[in-house]
């Protein structure tokens, strides 16, 4: 039974949210009725600050997983609407279906034409049902590839926003070649003849994330996660106990900081204290600046150099032991 209790981190988070609501309520009342409430509020503000420091100074990996999945976290459409202008959505893979879980669009970023792709997670149940919780079918990945081919044709950069629990694990998705679609995208992105910048904004769920996440620069929000398997899945397989997800989250090294240290992520984009959803504008500003900087730098690199660098970057990933019992190259 203890396993079902909310985690301490989540407890702290809820306490903080309650406190903030109470403070807000008091402040509103103070404004509306011109009643001074400073004395009443002061201890609450202090307690909230303590909680914040406690939680967000050193959030546990499991707490970061919760932040990454936070329902009010900025979504693709928020980034697109704020960072881009002249957005024109492209639909369909020209083969089977238009997949609403994955968005592709022509747009301008700082006035420059770009092609944007991304997992289209929603913020509420209705949106999420319509967009399958940001879990694409093969046709979503094939639409993304079609959009990337357009970017390649016109030599416009691709910006990819990653936020998915994973590729949809359904029978029809399997039948239509989920694995093939992901493999194809990974391969084609590894040699796409135009710059690709990836921003992992929320959940980077395994192959379903990687299918649009191979790029020249892979940026990651501070409280996003990127993992080969969900902590719950990992715990279930390793320890036959999904409730040990907290332990798995720590073991999997799925935070931006960890992944930067492992060389998988090129830059960690700091989030506002408490998470991106607490100050979306600050988050957008951070992402905008980073995107601008990376696109600027990539724009001047000759394409063959860019492709060699991209290849070498992925080529180097991983850690191996090698005995020198034979000479190699």
């Amino acid at each position: 039974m203890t396993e079902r209790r909310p985690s301490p981190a989540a407890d702290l988070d809820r306490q903080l949210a309650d406190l903030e609501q109470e403070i807000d309520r008091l402040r509103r009342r103070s404004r509306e009725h011109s009643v001074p409430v400073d004395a009443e509020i002061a201890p609450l503000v202090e307690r909230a600050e303590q909680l914040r420091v406690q939680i967000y100074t050193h959030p546990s990996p499991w707490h970061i997983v919760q932040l990454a999945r936070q329902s009010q976290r900025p979504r693709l459409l928020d980034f697109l609407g704020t960072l881009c202008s002249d957005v024109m959505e492209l639909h369909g893979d020209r083969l089977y279906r238009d997949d609403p879980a994955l968005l592709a669009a022509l747009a301008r970023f700082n006035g420059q034409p770009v092609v944007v792709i991304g997992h289209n997670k929603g913020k509420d149940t209705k949106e999420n049902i319509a967009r399958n919780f940001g879990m694409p079918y093969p046709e979503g990945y094939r639409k993304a590839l079609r959009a990337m081919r357009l970017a390649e044709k016109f030599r416009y950069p691709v910006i990819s926003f990653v936020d998915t629990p994973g590729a949809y694990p359904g029978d029809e998705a399997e039948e239509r070649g989920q694995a093939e679609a992901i493999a194809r995208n990974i391969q084609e992105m590894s040699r796409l003849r135009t710059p690709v910048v990836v921003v992992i904004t929320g959940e980077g769920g395994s192959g379903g994330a990687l299918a649009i996440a191979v790029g020249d620069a892979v940026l990651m929000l501070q409280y996003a996660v990127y993992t080969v398997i969900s902590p719950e899945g990992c715990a279930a397989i390793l320890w036959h106990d999904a409730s040990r997800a907290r332990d798995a989250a720590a073991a999997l090294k799925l935070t931006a900081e960890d992944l930067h240290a492992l060389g998988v992520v090129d830059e960690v984009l700091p989030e506002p204290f408490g998470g991106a959803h607490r100050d979306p504008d600050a988050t957008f500003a951070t992402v905008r600046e980073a995107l601008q900087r990376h696109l600027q730098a990539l724009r001047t690199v000759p394409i063959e150099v860019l492709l060699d660098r991209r290849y070498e970057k992925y080529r180097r990933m991983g850690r191996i032991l090698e005995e020198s019992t034979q000479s190699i190259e």
Partner: protein
Amino acid sequence: MPAGIWAKCPRCRNLIYRKELERNLKVCPKCSYHHRLTAVERLEITLDENSFQEYDAGLASTDPLGFESYPDKLSEAQAKTEQAEAVLTGEGTIEGWRTVTGALDFYFMGGSMGSAVGEKVARAAERAHAQRLPLLIFSASGGARMQEGVLSLMQLAKTSAAIGRLHDAGLPYLSVMCDPTTGGVTASFAFLGDVILAEPGALIGFAGRRVIEQTIRRKLPEDFQTAEFCLQKGLLDMVVPRTEMRSALSRLLAFVGAPRLVPVQIEPAPAAQP
């Protein structure tokens, strides 16, 4: 399979004389069930005798994340299989045709792809490229190796990119899916073959049956994700019984690679235009 004179077929439950089973390439003589093979067995029944020259025998995964009990599991697997890792790669010939061949070993931690498997596959592709030889990979894997976290996921990118370069150079790559080929390996090199073959009855898919059934809240049909099912769904080129695999590969190698296999003809092939 435990040792002993008799082996029990997991499908038809018959007891088979082990020598007979071996002679039949571990295909059940009663029901044609294709028993799983180790990587060593796979190479033995596929390559010409004594033709295999292994690459990177000493290359193994380490424990990059400090993941609970991973080093122990690695050691166990190494002891059990007498291999350093879940894939064997090297050069070898099939009816004389030169190849770079890799075989994943499901008996080594479920054939999972960690850094070492990715590295060996990528190197095999690069060597095939450098020597202008066809690449041939037998997959048998449960997916990524979660004990290496995202580093194991990155092996999908590494191997797919290496095979992309092979493709750009106009060099052939044949993929053979054996039982089981699931997860990350399917979402990378296994599905990127110029020609994709599979053994009869092999389980092939990205997501696991249980996860799918939980998601869709229905039972899946018995034949779901079998090689034959995938063939019908247009995902594979051929399902080839093990006893005919060597000759099928030999013909394919002759077809795709013949001009490059005669030692005299070493001029570079024209670059492919994808």
